């Protein structure tokens, strides 16, 4: 027992006291001019409409200018990694859906493939196709949710309802496929549990046919909107070097001009069979990230169309032992989740339970970039940047 370890409860935990966390917010001398202005420390969250959950950001402001931020996270910490050590491989599978709950399918895919790697088995081709279809649908759903909330943060109410209307179509497909809408638990280790339902392909095809027009609709509302452009261009800039140094991945990295997508770089499932582009931006600002995600949605549709047309017949489950005992070893497997690189580092000791599961959450790592992205900008930009980072607190805190 670690009773003798440091960190004993010398003082009561007082989460409301901002000074607790302000140790490193010494950000240089305040501007001493003739009219001295006091700095203001503002606690944004954890109960705040625009922090996308229970993120708490302590802002140090000079007027409206942000001098520095500090993120306080962990309000949604559930100890997923500890839970994993006490569950069998199969039993832990549904838990990963609860991390990034808006892209549950991607989480499941990453986990299942990591375990498959440990077990050294391959999912059959049909299962891979189903996986790709559902994952790309989920990417679309995640991006749509992102777009709606991001636009709402910037003050445009209407796109939210448009995106939710269209996201509903995707969730309906999920529901028909596996009975759940959000935390789908769609995949199993070794393949998929369920065969596609009758009319699955038709549903997906219908969606692919209608979706481009709907994405056009969102773009009509925002892309050329003068206020939207003014609010996003040049806001929250981050360079490609900074992105790499900070480990930022996903659309944020691509918007900074790095053409890197795990689906292309280190293909998993059967992404190497599909023909699609990696959209990139140049400036790494909020507007570019917006454009990149919009393009990504179109690319996802492209993958979906190919996948639906080419989906083969065959088994959907590989031969998997009833009791899973992967050989001793460790693997790291990562996939391109809608938010960035989602990795699983798994250590097996040969028993039925993982010895250690480490989740490399994209939101957690991306959130680190918030500070350098908003320094010197205004309070309103903090909101825009939190939105554009597309974080899900369930994944940040795990």
């Amino acid at each position, binding site marked *: 027992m670690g009773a003798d370890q440091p960190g004993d409860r010398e003082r009561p935990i007082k989460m409301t006291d901002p000074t607790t966390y302000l140790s490193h917010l010494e950000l240089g001398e305040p501007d001493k001019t003739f009219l001295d202005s006091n700095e203001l420390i503002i606690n944004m969250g954890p109960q705040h409409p625009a922090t996308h959950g229970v993120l708490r950001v302590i802002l140090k402001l000079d007027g409206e200018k942000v001098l520095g931020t500090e993120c306080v996270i962990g309000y949604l910490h559930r100890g997923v990694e500890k839970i994993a050590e006490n569950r069998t491989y199969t039993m832990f599978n549904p838990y990963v859906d609860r991390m990034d709950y808006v892209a549950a399918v991607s989480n499941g895919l990453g986990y299942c493939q990591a375990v498959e790697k440990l077990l050294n088995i391959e999912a059959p081709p049909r299962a891979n196709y189903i996986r790709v279809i559902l994952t790309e649908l989920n990417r679309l759903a995640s991006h749509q949710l992102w777009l709606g909330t991001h636009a709402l943060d910037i003050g445009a109410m209407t796109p939210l309802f*448009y995106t939710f209307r269209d996201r509903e179509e995707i969730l309906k497909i999920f529901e028909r496929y596996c009975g759940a809408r959000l935390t789908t638990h769609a995949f199993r280790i070794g393949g998929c549990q369920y065969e596609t339902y009758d009319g699955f392909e038709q549903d997906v095809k219908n969606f692919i046919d209608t979706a481009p027009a709907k994405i056009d609709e969102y773009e009509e509302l925002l892309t050329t909107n003068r206020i939207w452009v003014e609010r996003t261009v040049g806001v929250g800039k981050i360079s490609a070097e900074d992105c790499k140094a900070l480990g930022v991945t996903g659309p944020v990295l691509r918007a900074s001009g790095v053409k890197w997508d795990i689906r292309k770089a280190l293909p998993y499932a059967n992404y190497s069979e599909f023909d699609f582009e990696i959209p990139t931006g140049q400036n790494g600002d909020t507007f570019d990230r917006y454009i990149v995600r919009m393009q990504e949605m179109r690319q996802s549709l492209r993958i979906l169309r190919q996948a639906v047309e080419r989906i083969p017949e065959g088994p959907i489950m590989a031969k998997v032992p009833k009791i899973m005992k992967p050989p001793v070893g460790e693997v790291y497997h990562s996939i391109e989740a809608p938010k960035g690189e989602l990795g699983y580092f798994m250590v097996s000791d040969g028993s039925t339970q993982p010895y250690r599961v480490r989740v490399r959450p994209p939101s957690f790592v991306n959130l680190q970039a918030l500070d350098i992205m908003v320094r010197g900008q*205004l309070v309103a930009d903090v909101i825009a940047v939190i939105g554009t980072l597309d974080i899900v607190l369930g994944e940040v805190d795990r």
Partner: protein
Amino acid sequence: MLDYITSYLGMNTTPGQAGNVFWVVVYILVVFGGVSVAVMAMNWLERKALAHFQIRLGPMRVGPHGLLQPIADAVKLLTKEDIIPNEADKFVFWLAPLIILCASFTVYIVIPFGPTHAVTDLNIGILFMLGVSSLSVLGVVMAGWASNSHYPLIGSLRSSAQMISYEVAMGMAVVSAILMTSLNKTGTGTLSMIGIVQAQEQQQIWFLFKFFPLGFIAFVIFAIAMVAETNRAPFDLPEAESELTAGFHTEYSGLRWSLFMLGEYAAMIAVSSIAVTLWLGGWLRPFPHVLVGETWDLVFSLIPGFCFLGLALIAFIGVARMPKHPYFRIQTIGLAGFGAVLGLIGLILFAPPVRDRIQDIFWFVAKVAVFMYLYIWYRATFPRYRFDQLMKVGWKYLLPVAIGVLILTAIAGVIF
């Protein structure tokens, strides 16, 4: 006493000018009651229209198509617990919503719904309106400070900076319209609201089209500034929900919060009335000098009645489309009743004595309603400006253009 009351009816002037206290009080009650009802209607309309912009239905439960929703809201707000934060400055906290409410309702004294349909006609009418409506900044500042909390304070700082900034551009635009009133034989203009409309009548043109495009530009500047002045989207930074939770009224709840809302909507209607009075010919019906003659007068005077009949028709279509299910019986009856009331009002409006008196008000209200719709439309379409951008728009674009328009209007006035 009775003579005192009836003596006003013969006079062709506003009760304020006639000095008839009884009718002043009556007018005040009518106007304030009307505005309160308009605010409630606006509330319902905003929720419905916004909902339809956003592919949803909006309130549907309370009454047919949610018609009784504002009443339900009001009841809810009135019965809510009245929370005053512990650390708040209680007196100022209590005073702030009242100041906003007073400021936005007092301006209705000078709004001319018709040549004689105003509480009074102040010689400095427009000045009075701008001055009193600017007092609502005070309420915002007080609310923000008294809450003793960061978000409200920042909200009120933003709000007052915004309102003061846009007041400048707004004032310049107003001055150019007032300048146009002086283009008559005597060369003296007027600040009186009724006088401004009468000037448009005499010059046979709405100031919107006067010295085209000068009047139009001034109007556009005013229309932008008035949105900022009332803290509405896309200039709703003081209450930017995503940044400052609810801005200066974050700590308010229940009745006090509803007073803020009442004040906000009343202010929206008030500034729209200014715009209508200054540029859109106030109570004048469309084309008063193009489509002249007895027939046209009759046609235009029938429009209000037909308008209400149309609304009644829509209500009856709604009745017909209501699901035939016992569950909807009360709603159907309610909607039918509502339609019947609208139809009845329409029929009453056809009666010649009513028709003649009411049509000024109708045209005024109709023009204001266009602005109200625009407010909702903006809110559904635009993202929110950032604070520095807002200031940039106000000081770098609107103000220079407004001054330019003012100078050009003066030159044009001298030349033509």
